[in-house]
């Protein structure tokens, strides 16, 4: 195996869970998330030699992923129905609570515009700095800040999410 391929394999092994989690938050579906990660990796691989010389190759892969997802989400056939069958209120038992959290988060994220969702997920979940998010999305840091503020404002309006946050705060 070539060094390039070896390095790529190591990267995939080390980072695929993190990438898949981000992809799930973007797509809300594990099958789509897996597809998204694979597509992003397939697009990154041919230029891995270059990418790996960067300070942080993951930023590049994430950028490809976010862009690919943005491209997908503009297509009709990927039309997402975020708030389909969200359970009403809180059901008893841990399992159900877990599902409720999952559904609530998914539906709340689904209410965001694509860019807001990307900024929010990268900033809060992946813990990227504002500058890094700007780099991933190819926009100014100011844009990241304002988009983030709008995303958070929107999420605050989501009643189910507010309830969950309230409960956690207590």
């Amino acid at each position, binding site marked *: *195996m*070539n*060094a*390039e*391929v070896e390095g*790529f*394999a190591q990267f*995939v092994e080390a980072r*695929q*869970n993190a990438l*898949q*989690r981000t992809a*799930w*938050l973007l797509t809300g579906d*594990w099958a789509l*998330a*897996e597809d998204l*990660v*694979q*597509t*992003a*990796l*397939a*697009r*990154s*691989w*041919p*230029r891995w*030699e*270059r990418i790996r*010389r*960067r*300070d942080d190759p993951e930023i*590049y892969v994430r*950028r*490809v*992923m976010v*862009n*690919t997802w943005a*491209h997908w989400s503009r297509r009709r056939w990927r039309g997402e129905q975020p708030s389909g069958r969200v359970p009403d209120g809180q059901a008893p038992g841990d399992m159900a609570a*877990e599902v409720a*959290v*999952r559904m*609530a*988060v*998914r539906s709340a994220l689904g209410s965001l515009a694509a860019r807001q969702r990307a900024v929010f*997920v990268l*900033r*809060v*979940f992946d*813990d990227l700095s504002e500058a890094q998010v700007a*780099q991933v999305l*190819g926009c100014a840091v100011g844009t990241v800040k304002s988009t983030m503020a709008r995303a*958070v404002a929107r*999420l605050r309006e989501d009643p189910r*999410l507010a309830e*969950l*946050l309230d409960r*956690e*705060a207590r």
Partner: protein
Amino acid sequence: MNGMDRQMRELLDAAVGEPPHQVSVEAVRRRVIRRRVMEYVATGAAVAVTAAAVLAGIGALGRGPGRSAAASTAVPTVYVCNVKGTVIPIRIATNTAGKPIRVGFLAVTAIAITPDEKTAYVVEGSGSSGTVPPIATVIPIATATNTAGKPIKVGRFFAGPIAITPDGKTAYVVESSGSSGAVIPIATATNTVGKPIKVGRLAGPIAITPDGKTAYVASWSLGTVIPIATATNTAGKPIKVGAGLEFGGIAFTPDGKTAYVVESSGGSGAVIPIDTGTNTAGKPIKVGASAGGIAITPDGKTAYVGNQGPGTVIPIDTVTNTAGKPIRVGTSAGPSEIAITPDGKMAYVGNLNGTVTPVTIATNTAGKPIKVGGFLGVGPIAITPDGKTVYVASRNLGTVIPIATATNTAGKPIKVGSSSVVGDTDTLPCMAITP
């Protein structure tokens, strides 16, 4: 992170859970190949060969002979490689791109032009173990007609870089298929390959001394640089230069007495001078992590090394072999490529943030960055022999930008590839200019 964010983070964590499946590299590789084949089938209609023939490994990709057609003198041209398997000639006089020359469809990795400028040798370096028969080839392009000749098979899997001796008689291609790496000599008169010269697996950059007597090739896996005597095509004793994780480049002083090898293993970059007379390595010159490209002034007094981490270029005094004060050229997205004008007055440094910084060599000061665009940063840089134009590839925009050295202004971008979605764009891995 404020309280609200932290709560949100915890919620997201709780919502996500574990991915049900793992992604395999093999699956990714299959996708890469499928994409390329689909693209090839979609665009390959104009080429007088079917995709099926290529898949079957019949390498008759080109249409005309490689060398015999080189009757008329070639016009001054920049050859830009598109990773997707084409080479685009750009006429220097008009800055217009000619018809792409198809050399394959997987990955072009390197290009070199013979000193008589009759032939450009292009390495189509990446096969795969998937559906396509793995094969790495070198394709000669006749510069007079810009047609590809018969591919020369050099390996099973990966190949590149390539270097040509000053007399133009031999091209050396680094091949790193499977468990062992080798350098393959190609006799340019007949376009036939000689016996592979074993150099250890994961061989890196290659460079030939100005007198043409020795080719130096770096071996990543061993952390050595191996001298190859071009007269006999035999490998000499390996010269230990570092831990052997990554090599940025090899450059020679014009007198050929010293080779400078950039080595950046394990976070500590250094430039190692090698005495080409005795083939011994000198004391490493520390230049910081992420050291990249290297270029030496025509008078041989200074070597410039890019350091991507802090975004600086470090001048090295070749007499004392000491590093001078770093020249700041960019932000964190630092320099990746360096080229020096033939008159030795200016160095042009390509940055990963999509700019080119001119550095005045007399004073070691950086000028205003010239914006060429592109998130993936600046690709290869080539300067015309008259020093009037610097050609810079923008990686993800699929363009080559001419910069007039008189004014340091960027001209109209020349389109050589596509630039739709970022992840979808062509990369322009290599570029060569007719001497």
